[in-house]
Each structure stands twice: as structure tokens, then as C-alpha cells.
């Protein structure tokens, strides 16, 4: 579904992605973890061509997207919904208007149908009460949920989550995690999640890839990931109090 083939990206003097290759299959929840500046968000931006690789190919559904024209790129992007780190809601629009925006821009639907589809999504994400509020008047967690409602309003095949739990309290973070799992189970959506919260990664991921200094140091299912022999992975796990023998092993085996 998504394939990176020997992708390299240099920003300034820093090689942010260094000959990176990996593949995300349909229906997966693929989690990219790593320290700040490891290249996680850059990887995500390449998937929707908000950034272009210096070398290598990015393939979406069998199509190399590096040099697509505007129309073809629009078609590729229509397969994606993106939840940005800051939720990226338009500040002068209400939550309802933000979620309705892609429908109003791309489909000529009667207003009643727009209302129905938006309300459906808002209800699913427990946001109906906030429909008439502006982004500045709702909490960070609600903003993320509103961003997610907008990301999935066009029924995308793939949803990209850039740090979905950053800046949120632990309870809200777990609620967002549940939502991501719910998206996969209820809507069959393929998800790519960028995070440095390993607890979240292990809870929601079907596969976890760790980037370090622009290179992939591990790419494995959660149970194999926590047993990785790679030192960087181990030190990353330990930094978040996750050990091979602990509750995570039990949870994964449940």
C-alpha cells in the first residue's frame, strides 16, 4: 500500500532520511517511533508529498508519487486523511465547518446530507456538543478529535497521525489510542502513526518501526520489537520503563 524505496532526504546539512526502505500493508497500524529529530514526521510528510525525497521512490498503491502532476497527486492524496500534530483546524471556522470543509470543497452534496455525514462523524468521536464551537474554545484533546473527524470525513483508505497524543494528559492520550484502534476495527482504515510514546505504540501498533539518525534500526511487530537486540531500541524502551519481562509482554500475549 505504502512503500519507501531507498529514500534519502537532506535538510540543510543534516541527512534526515538515509536510504530508508519499508512497506506498510493494507489494514495495518504502522507505528513510527524514535527520538525527536529522528525523521519521523519527515517520513510522514513524504507519504503525502508535502516533502520530496532527494533520491529514492515513494510508492502508493503501486504508483510512484515523486513526480506526479497536480491532478494525479490530488487523486493520491484523496486516499489519505491526516491528523496533524497541532490538529491544524482552521481557526475562523467552527468544529462543524472544519469537518464539513472537505465535503463542501469536493462534493456537491445537499446541505442536509452534509449535516448528516458531519454529525455522524462528530457523534462517533463524541464531539456533537462542540459542533458550534471554535477551535480556540475547546480543549487540546477535543481539537485532536475534531482533526480526526475531518481527516476521516471523506472515508480515506489511509489515515496518518502525526504525534496524536503529544501535549495531552494520559487519560485523553489513551482515549485517542482507543480511537485509532477503533478506526482500524470499525472502518478498516490503514493507519500510520508517528509518536515517541512507546506505551501508545505498543498498545495500538501491528508493527513498529524505529528510526534513529535517519536510519531504520528496527521494524517488527510489537512482541518482536520489545525483544529487539538493537541497543538503540533497548535504550529507547528502557527510557520509558518498558522491559522485555514486564506487563507489556503479558499484554501483547493476551
Amino acid at each position, binding site marked *: 500500500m505504502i512503500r519507501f524505496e531507498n529514500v534519502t532526504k537532506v535538510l540543510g546539512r543534516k541527512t534526515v532520511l538515509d536510504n530508508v526502505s519499508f512497506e506498510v500493508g493494507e489494514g495495518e497500524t504502522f507505528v513510527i517511533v524514535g527520538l525527536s529529530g529522528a525523521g519521523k514526521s519527515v517520513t510522514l*510528510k513524504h507519504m*503525502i508529498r*508535502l516533502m520530496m525525497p532527494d533520491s529514492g521512490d515513494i510508492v502508493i498503491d503501486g504508483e510512484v508519487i515523486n513526480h506526479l502532476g497536480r491532478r494525479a497527486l*490530488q487523486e493520491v*492524496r*484523496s486516499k*489519505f486523511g*491526516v491528523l*496533524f*500534530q*497541532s490538529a*491544524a*483546524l*482552521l*481557526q475562523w471556522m467552527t468544529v462543524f465547518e472544519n469537518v464539513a*470543509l*472537505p465535503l*463542501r*470543497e*469536493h462534493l456537491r452534496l445537499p446541505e442536509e446530507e452534509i449535516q448528516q455525514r458531519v454529525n455522524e462523524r462528530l457523534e462517533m468521536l463524541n464531539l456533537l456538543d462542540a459542533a458550534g464551537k471554535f477551535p480556540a474554545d475547546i480543549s487540546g484533546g477535543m481539537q485532536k478529535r475534531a482533526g480526526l473527524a*475531518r481527516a476521516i470525513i471523506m472515508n480515506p483508505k489511509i489515515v496518518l497521525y502525526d504525534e496524536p497524543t503529544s501535549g495531552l494528559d494520559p487519560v485523553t492520550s489513551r482515549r485517542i489510542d482507543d480511537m485509532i484502534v477503533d478506526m482500524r476495527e470499525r472502518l478498516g482504515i490503514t493507519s500510520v502513526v508517528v509518536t515517541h510514546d512507546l506505551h501508545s505504540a505498543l498498545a495500538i501498533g501491528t508493527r513498529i518501526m524505529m528510526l534513529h539518525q535517519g536510519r531504520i534500526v528496527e521494524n517488527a511487530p510489537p512482541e518482536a520489537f520489545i525483544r529487539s537486540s538493537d541497543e538503540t531500541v533497548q535504550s529507547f524502551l528502557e527510557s520509558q520503563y518498558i522491559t522485555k519481562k514486564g506487563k507489556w509482554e503479558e499484554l501483547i500475549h493476551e
Partner: protein
Amino acid sequence: MNYPVRSAERVGGKVLQLLHNAGHALVMLLEATLYIRLAFGNRSRRETVTQMYVTGIKSLAVITVVALFTGMILALQTGLELRRYGQEVYIGSAVAVSMIREMGPFMTGLIIAASVGSAIAAQIGTMVVSEEISALEVMSINPNRFLVMPRLFALAVMMPILAVYTNILGILGGAVVGSTQLGVSVQSYMDNATQFATNKDLYVGLFKAFVFGIIITTVSCHQGFMTREGAVGVGKATRRSVILSFLTILVVGYMITRLFYI
């Protein structure tokens, strides 16, 4: 590498960057112009009307004060000189011609660049920083159609209207000074004003205002889109948009005057 070569490289790099930015701004302007026909379509109507309101109505208070005092200052300065020759009755023509040809569009341009243009740069800059522009792109919503076009339409339409308003208030301001400070009756002031100002003056003035509207939108939107480095970047973009708009308005204003009057 020796110093002259390094300096030449640096200058060359700056020039290339400048040309690249100018090209980028021009492409943005052309694309927004192509979408102008959609200004009152279902998707853009609300934003277009909002921008027209922000540019036109919300700027009225400051324009009123500036225009009145510009006319008053013009009348006072020229009137004091003309009084030495007993010709103070000519302040009507001096104020009217100055306002209609130059001061009206120019003052309006400066005010709109400082108030509306800076707000545009700050808003778009903030949208860049908070990833709202990226979100628009991912949703396949063209930012040039969604954000630039309504602002371009609003400023291109409202600037000439505001310039006419500035002209009228400036001339009225002159009349007030003429009648209260210089002993020129309102009737003779107005007679003199209408006698010397021509239709050409009015058309050229309106054309200038129209061009200034396009300049302010292009510079402000482009500076907004170029924003980097978070809140500091938004501040820089806002400052640059005002400075660049002022300079471009001055240079282009001179060129239009030269084109039509020499």
C-alpha cells in the same frame, strides 16, 4: 576560496533567491487571478464578502482621520505659501489635484498595507506555522484559490473605492482649513478644485489604487506563505510584508505617474 569569490557567490545566491521568490509570488498572483471568476461561487462567497468587509468597512475609521488631516495639512502648507502672493484661493486646485492624482491612492495604499496587509501576512504565516496550509494541501484545497483569491478580489475592488473616499475627505479637510484659517470660502474653494482636476487625474488615481491593491495582496500573501521559524517567523513575515508593500507602492506609484504624465 578567496574572499572576492566567496562574496560574489553570496551576492549571486541572494539574487537567485530574490528571483525565485519573485517568481513564486508571480505564479501565486496569476493562479489567484485565474480563480477570480469563482469569487462569488458557493465555496468562496463568504470569504470574499468577509475580506471586502475587513478591507473596506473596518478600515474606514483610520482612513477618515488620515484623509481629513492629509487634506488639512496640504491646504495649510500650500495656503500659507500662496497667501504671500495673494493667491490662496488656489488651494482648492492644489489640494484636489494632489489628492486625486497622488495622495489619495498613496495614503490609502499605505494605510491598507499597514493594517490589512500586515494582518494577511500574520494570518497566513500563523496558518503555515500551525500546519493549516499543509492541511489544506492534503485536503486538495488550493490555498491560492481558498485564501489568496478572495483577498485579491477584495483589495482590487475596495482600494479604488477607498481611494475615492480618501479623495473626498481630503478635499473636504482642505475646505475646512481654507474657510477657517485662510479666509477662502467653501464655494470658491470648490469652484477652484473642480476647475483644475481632470477626469484623467481621477482615472489614473483609481488605476493606481487598483494596482496598489494587487501589490499589497501579492506581497502580504507571499510573505505569509514564506513564513518559517514559528512565532518569530510570523513577526518577521509581517514586518517584511509592510516594508516591501511600502517600497513597491512608492516605486510603482512613481512609474505610473511617469507613464501617464510625461
